[in-house]
């Protein structure tokens, strides 16, 4: 059991003074899978990643990374990890290639090997044309791809990605996802945190939903949706009207009604039938949208809150 898990956590806790950022979580990540921590900002995802990355010591509980103890064997574990941090840590004074070769030296990789790998990795993240440019003028998406390339230079067994596409425009996000998907196909184990449900659905074989330091659900994206939501969702807006007036009138349509500040969600197996039922009750929504259930709905159901609160 323990041998198969690249990450094995039991009752893992991280406290900062009075604040408990991670509150007793159990996690097992197996070789070759893409595993996600999904949750809003402040759910404890980044604190968990820092413990897994052996830069922050657990306050309590058991944690084994690659079968080793992160407190005692930190350098040894880190030599086999690839870390793509949330905040940019590229060196703006170095070129794109140098950012990889200099980083490779931190892992004790010989210069010649570092140069070869840098060329391959830049090819992989489609930055070959920028190889000799400074990092500063690169776009956010390019910098993120370079950070991913840099994280792969030691041929890691486990790649940690903390919010890999936060702050990127949609096109840049898709390019990053596509590269990460390729990595996954090569059998690299990916562990990522995200507060984007579409990112989790795209990339993760299995994920845990985190809220306030705890794991509230675990499974594949499809399992979670099946377990905690309906097949379809009907989204209704009623212009400027107070939504409280409508929730009562919708009872009986679909399995569950959820009122958000700006819209009402009706959970149902058949969205179109529910829309027709709303129409039959002579309610006149200003907009009607039928969509498939997503992890966002799972999170809403489990916590009563939305993932992205802004």
């Amino acid at each position, binding site marked *: 059991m323990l041998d198969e898990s690249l990450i094995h956590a039991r009752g893992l806790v991280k406290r900062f003074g009075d604040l408990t950022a991670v509150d007793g979580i159990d996690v097992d990540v197996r070789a070759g899978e893409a595993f996600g921590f999904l949750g809003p900002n402040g759910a404890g995802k980044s604190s968990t990643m820092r413990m897994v990355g052996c830069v922050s010591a657990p306050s309590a509980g058991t944690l084994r990374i690659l079968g080793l103890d992160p407190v005692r064997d930190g*350098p040894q574990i880190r030599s086999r990890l690839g870390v793509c941090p949330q905040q940019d840590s*590229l060196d703006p004074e170095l070129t794109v290639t140098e950012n990889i070769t200099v980083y490779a030296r931190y892992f004790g990789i010989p210069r010649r090997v570092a140069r070869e790998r840098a060329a391959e990795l830049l090819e992989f993240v489609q930055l070959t044309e920028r190889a000799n440019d400074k990092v500063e003028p690169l776009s956010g998406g390019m910098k993120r791809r370079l950070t991913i390339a840099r994280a792969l230079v030691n041929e890691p067994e486990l790649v940690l990605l903390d919010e890999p596409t936060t702050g990127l425009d949609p096109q840049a996000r898709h390019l990053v996802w596509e590269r990460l998907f390729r990595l996954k196909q090569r059998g690299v184990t990916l562990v990522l945190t995200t507060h984007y449900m579409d990112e989790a659905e795209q990339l993760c074989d299995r994920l845990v939903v985190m809220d306030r330091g705890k794991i509230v659900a675990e499974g594949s994206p499809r399992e979670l949706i099946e377990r905690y939501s309906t097949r379809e969702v009907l989204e209704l807006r009623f212009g400027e009207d107070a939504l409280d007036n409508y929730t009562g009138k919708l009872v009986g349509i679909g399995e569950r009604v959820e009122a958000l500040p700006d819209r009402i969600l009706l959970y149902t197996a058949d969205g179109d039938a529910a829309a027709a039922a709303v129409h039959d009750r002579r309610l006149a929504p200003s907009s009607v949208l039928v969509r498939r259930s997503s992890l966002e709905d799972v999170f809403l159901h489990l916590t009563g809150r939305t993932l992205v609160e802004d």
Partner: protein
Amino acid sequence: MTTMPSPLPVFEHRMVSYRRIWRGTVFSSFLLPVLFLLGMGISVGAYVNRAGELGVPYLDYIAPGLLASAALQVAIGESMWPVLGSFEWNRTYHAMKASPLRAQDLVGGELLYILVRVGMSAAGFLVVMTAFGTVHSWWGFTAVPVALLTAAAVAGPVMAYSASIKSDNMFALLYRFAVIPMTLFAGVFFPVDSMPLVARWIAYVSPLWHGVELCRAATLGWPLTLPAVAHVGYLALWALGGYALARSRFAKRLTG
């Protein structure tokens, strides 16, 4: 693949950047001290020491002091902004911490880089000093290792300071209360004996005074105030204490 982490890659990182910026540092760490030496030594020297109280021309007197002081300036400058910047601005240390490197490797690598920088500028300065006939003793070359030791004595504590602050505004405090008083009162420009006792003690506790004493003994062949081993030992104590402090501050900042 298990390679022992070491300070060398951290040193290499600085050197890769240094290859791009070295021209700028030639002015600040070599030309400026030389201009200072000639300006002060020749112009001020024409007004002071007229009766020959110092026993040597004023230029020769301040040259070893300025050598030690320039070493201190380079060491302190390189322990301030680059260190704070690597924590706060470009997060270089956080990137390093994702590799097998440990806090002591980061501190050791930075120290190594600082010593190389100080070694180059001190050696260049000594060549200029020799050209102007200010070096009176064959032991003059030992001023370079003394400059290195002086640099090491201040680099550690200042790195620890830089690792403990959030904003570079705090550097002004360090300049105001440590660097400038030390530079003025540690015997670089005039003998410490000419100051009141309280001020003299400021000189005695400062690492710079010990560096100045040793440099002056090296280039002028003058006797030391304390036995050489005491001066060297005092600087070594600062260097070791500073290293230990920097290492623990780095570790705390990176894991906090």
